[in-house]
């Protein structure tokens, strides 16, 4: 075999090794959740047992406990409720704003867009203390509506940024033609631009919804009753009774709440990434 051929095989082996080891490392916690979710307690809590195999037959007890005796389903419902309203608010505010920015001529459009994008970098951990007081004054303490009000401040900036790029790719002639046909500018926006931007709008919907499920700091700060938790706070804080961890049920909960979001997000990944690269990739 030639030296070049040997080198090629070596390069391929290194590549496979890198891929396999990283995939195993990154996905391992989810595999571990899956195993723990179906193991009997006696199996989970015996130190000598090989944790990689089922030493006792698998059980559905943890899943039954999770859905029957905890507020898990309620938390999923709360998350979906907040998610849907926040998506609606985000779309109502971000779609028109992004369009206005995309059509704003000159450097100002670009600069305003970047300024808005930068507000996405301001983290909840900087604002949660004053906001907790504001939420109290508004009488929204312990209400899911505190999150409905606050979350759009995290989703609107990035959504405007994503949609702005999207609208810019739509030729102006389209609206001009619609306006010649008698539509107002706003009418042209609603009837021509919005319908052909549906995939961009769907991206914003997914982005907003995943952000609502991932957020932790505001949900932890504003809401204390167990029945009104979001899934991301309810599972880690309220599935623990005193010092007792229900690991089987906890792992089942993590898996059930993570996988659907993971699958949907994966479908839209390339569009989000286009937003994150700040124009440094063309």
């Amino acid at each position, binding site marked *: 075999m030639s030296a070049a051929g040997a080198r090629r095989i070596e390069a391929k082996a290194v590549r496979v090794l890198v891929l396999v080891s990283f995939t195993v490392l990154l996905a391992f916690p989810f595999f571990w959740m899956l195993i723990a979710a179906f193991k009997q307690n006696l199996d989970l809590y015996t*130190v000598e047992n090989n944790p990689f195999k089922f030493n006792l037959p698998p059980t559905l007890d943890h899943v039954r406990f999770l859905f029957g005796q905890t507020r898990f389903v309620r938390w999923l419902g709360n998350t979906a409720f907040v998610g849907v309203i926040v998506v609606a608010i985000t779309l109502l505010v971000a779609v028109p704003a992004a369009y206005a920015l995309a059509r704003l001529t000159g450097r100002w459009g670009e600069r305003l867009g970047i300024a808005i994008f930068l507000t996405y970098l301001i983290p909840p951990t900087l604002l949660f203390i004053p906001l907790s007081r*504001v939420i109290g004054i508004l009488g929204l303490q312990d209400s899911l509506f505190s999150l409905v009000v606050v979350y759009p401040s995290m989703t609107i900036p990035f959504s405007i940024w994503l949609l702005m790029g999207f609208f810019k790719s739509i030729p102006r002639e389209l609206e001009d033609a619609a306006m010649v046909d008698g539509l107002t*500018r706003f009418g042209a926006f609603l009837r021509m631009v919005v319908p052909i931007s549906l995939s961009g709008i769907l991206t914003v919907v997914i982005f907003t919804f995943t952000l609502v499920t991932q957020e*932790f*700091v505001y949900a932890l700060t504003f809401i204390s009753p167990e029945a009104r938790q979001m899934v*991301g706070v309810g599972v880690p804080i309220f599935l623990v009774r005193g010092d007792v961890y229900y690991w089987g049920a906890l792992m089942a909960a993590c898996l059930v709440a993570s996988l659907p979001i993971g699958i949907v997000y994966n479908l839209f990944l390339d569009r989000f990434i286009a937003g994150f690269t*700040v124009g440094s990739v063309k």
Partner: protein
Amino acid sequence: MSAPARKASAARSPSALGIAMFAPAVLYIVLLIGAPFALAILYAFSDARIGATSIHFAGLENFRSILQSPSFRMAVKNSIVFTVCAQVIIIVCSGMLSIALEKPFRGRGFVRFLILLPWVAPVSLGTIGWKWILDSIYSVITWVLVSLHFYKPYSAPMWLGQPHLAMASVILVHCWRLIPFSTVIMLAGMSAISREIPEAAAIDGAGFWRTTFQINLPMMTPIVSVAVLFGTVFTFTDMTVVYILTAGGPFDSTQTIPTLAFATGIAGSDLAAGAAISLFLVPVLVVVAYLMLRIAHRAEVV
């Protein structure tokens, strides 16, 4: 209407409409980001507490007591250590991973999905998964080490119970969560780099090292910077990982600026001191914002 007048009104009317379309977004950002930020600064110079109805100006009192507290100094040190260590590991790992992932192969979509899970799954839930992996008694890592005879049964270290191991665990979870994000950003960057320039250089006689250091790396710099900047913000300002994994312990050894701000301001009811602590996130955010602007500006010019 004369032609110039019509032109003028056409130029004016869309801008009025533009302002109307843009105003709600600005209002939202000003009310829910700008105003709370101003309030955070105000609180930091006051004596605000949860439950107290009146607020008084307290000058630099909060900052004086914070700067004297060992917990705070520990938190600043940890925040910097965690952020820097995590970024170095993340960039090295995601660099390797993105190169390995670049060429298409069978099952690439599924591999990408598995790799992405840590970034996509809710942070708090992924961290709980790690808490089980790092459990003091039933840790799988402990089991493997014991069965490989590195440790005798029951003598393995408690991963989250000893200061240095707890710090390493926090860094590990941050890396785990951000490597996927950084990898896809780099993949996007690599797909945009033209193959022609390195090939032309190779024809002109540039060797592997020269192509790597003088062509490939400089071309990757903007995209790697973007990954580092986002990673820095996501690690430095994150509270979830530490709060769930160690709650800042043992003995403040994993306390960070955000977790200390929460412990002081919300759990400890001292809004003023909590706000003052969280303001120490701002310098890093300002630097990141400045660098982001430079990258965006350069992208705009090119």
